[in-house]
């Protein structure tokens, strides 16, 4: 697969249909893997693919509601904020995501 180009810092990474409902896909980037999640209601969220607990790949977890359970130790991470649900503490970085029709665009922070 060839690298996608950036337009104004935004990258077109694919379409809604590329991601299974209640699932996730990853996008590789210079800041590490980014997980793009799709909920049952077809909402989309992007987080860095690292659980704040032990760095587990959140993209491999079970998605439910607007959360994902980490596959390593079952921490529940809020997809909207990246925050671990209380009483656990920690935050996975959120990545800006925007939809242009069927396309999904991501913007990775600089530096």
């Amino acid at each position, binding site marked *: *697969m*060839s*690298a*996608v*180009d*950036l337009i104004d*810092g935004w*990258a*077109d*990474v*694919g379409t809604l249909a*590329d*991601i*299974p*409902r*209640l*699932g996730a*896909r*990853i*996008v*590789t*980037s*210079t800041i590490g*893997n*980014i997980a*793009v999640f799709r909920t*049952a*209601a077809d909402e989309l969220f992007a987080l860095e693919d690292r659980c704040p607990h*032990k*760095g*587990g*790949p959140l993209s*491999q*977890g*079970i*998605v*439910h*509601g607007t959360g994902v*359970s980490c*596959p*390593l130790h*079952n921490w*529940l991470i809020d997809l909207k904020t990246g925050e671990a649900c*209380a*009483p*656990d503490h920690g935050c996975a970085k959120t990545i800006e995501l925007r939809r242009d029709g069927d396309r999904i665009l*991501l913007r*990775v922070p*600089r530096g």
Partner: protein
Amino acid sequence: MNMLTPRKQRLVLVGNGMAGMRTVEEILARAPGRFEITVFGAEPHVNYNRIMLSPVLAGEKCFDEIVINDRAWYEANDVELIAGEKIVAVDRDARQVHGANGTVRPYDVLLLATGSNPFVIPVPGVNLPGVVTFRDMADVDAMLAASRTHRHAVVIGGGLLGLEAANGLALNGMDVTVVHLMPTLMERQLDVAAGTLLAGDLERRGIKVLTAANTKALLGEDRVRAVQLADGTELPADLVVMAVGIRPNGELGKAIGLTTNRGIVVDDGMCTSDPAIYAIGECVEHRGLTYGLVAPLWDMAKVCADRITATAESGYAGTVTGTRLKVTGIDMFSAGNIAGGEDCDDIVLRDPARGVYKRLILKGDLLVGVVLYGEASEGNWYFQLLKDATPIGGLRDNLIFGQAFALGGGAAADPGAAVKAMADDAEICGCNGVCKGKIVTAIAAQGLTTLDAVRAHTKASASCGSCTPLVEQILALSLGDGYQQSTAAKPMCKCTTHPHEEVRARILADGLKSIPAVMRALDWTTPDGCSSCRPALNFYLLTAWPGDYVDDAQSRFINERAHANIQKDGTFSVVPRMWGGVTSAKELRAIADVVDKFAIPEVKVTGGQRIDLLGVKKEDLPAVWADLNAAGMVSGHAYGKALRTVKTCVGSEWCRFGTQDSTGMGVALERMTWGSMHPHKVKLAVSGCPRNCAEATIKDFGVIAVDSGWELHIGGNGGIKLRGTDFLCKVTTDAEVLEYCGAFLELYRQEARYLERTAPWVERVGLDYVKRHIVEDAAGRAKLYAAFLHAQTFAQTDPWAERVAEDAASRHEYRPMAEMAAAP
């Protein structure tokens, strides 16, 4: 010697057992350095915990684990140990003891702790080889040796010691008969009702019990061959264990002229008729009583140490004793006066279905006796009420239901006392390293009131769960009346009010075939469940409607979705199936090529006789599988709540001890069961002879070959909580092994809760329940077996090959969606 330093007092202890050594420890605690101490022991060992010999015989502990004071302890405390030398004489005038090997030691204070001797009934043949008692480590060694080479054991004596011996010998594979003179077992501790339940439980473990049986003679020429009873019955016996009782060993005391009766007579200060000589433990007679249990020893040791060091004028007033049988899985407790009498009242609870019997004996307002069988967790509380002579008063109405109920609300008292007494830094949860203090602090600081909340905040009991009762007790202690333990059937998870069983029943009754259908029909409170209920529902649908349900990959844990095990760094491990643990040069070559081609960092042999390839990148998985498939290998399902492995020994094809082709049987079982999904992982093993090299007795379904067929064992595991299997039954043909196995697995997966392994499931439903369905009900067994085979027609497709065959687009799970270039 320096004239200014007073000479240390010399203390000689005769008897390196529990009573004497506990006294020495108590003396060292009260007056360190005051005595020059010498200990003589007739046994060639350091001091060990004699009451733990039963677990040693049963194979649950080894000798090192029951040592109380090792040699380093004697050295560190400057105590001279002369082990293996018996004291033969004491010169009371010169105050010297003389050992059998000529050792002489002077004393200022002499302490006799010579214990007791097993009572051997005076019948012909008691001196034959093969006749042993059950008193010390040498006896245990003799029994273990006999169990390796002989088949039939007879234990004479159905008391505490005899039954523990019988259980240990049975666990070592011997055919055991208990011969007991009285009409019921343990008649000094148990009444007729409880004794009868006990006999039933032992018989279910394969131990034969003969009561009201009088031994007349032991027969044999070079070795014991049979036990002859008074009615003429002959019981075959290669080993006879005499366990009819003990007698205080007061011989030395008597020989040196101390006052003795049944034992060495002592006063309330544990002093004998010679003021320089004290005596303690099972060798003494105090106020006309002798003792054979451990609790009195501890009481005596305190008094004796007080007196010898002159630190307190304490007195021993006798000990009320309570008894538990150290047979794993048999729960009983007995204390006090169990005979009752005209001036006593009995409160009795019987639940025959659960095998529970509880009887409390009251005299006026006091509890004077307790017999608990089948459920004895309240024993400590009753015992405390009995020892303290606590007036029962208003507790009487609910006394039989136990402490929590009787006191109302489970307020802290004795069962919690052990937890209460724990130091704050005592570790409660070993998985997550959580100590008591942390839990107590979290409960107070965060206002936690439920087990789930404690788990969430502290992680205590959140992993394996084996410390859950402790955590609940800490909650109860911290909250007092505020904590109410839930007893109702628990809901599956927070998304529903329905327990597992109810959900499964509705899936069948309402014909529900997909997760959304279940959630709609049962009013799930969340739109799409959670990571706890969704995998369970997917599994319940799979078992209810094989071939006809809607599988939801997104409701499977990543390992089952990706057909590989996720590792801590996000890479995966791959385990190809090796039928029965058998591989070939071709397979090994293919594996080696895969390792090289994909630069797989680690190759490891697993406990289930497979090869594990660790550190495979997710995007490489399909290519790795394609290469393994090409060499004829399929998925080993090491990632699934599924049939994992069938471990085998080489069996009669190669082994000089093998009685059947265990490898062939293992391959056949694995061919039948591979691909099947279960509530949790399932492991099988087949051993070719009772030496059991394949460790079949810690497997979910274990098969052990014997000369005349196959023994089937169920419900074992080596996991969080080690559990040996229960013996299910013996079968004669290979076809029967397959049928019983398939039926057992089908029953398990249809009825156990998701994530419940066979071991806790068997404990929950009971071995009898499984036997009723698998052994006794031939038609039911055939039906279960047919259901298993039917489900297998849908399950036995290699998931690796399926993914390999998919076109690249449907394999997207394994590839990134896109690669983003660096920002300009």
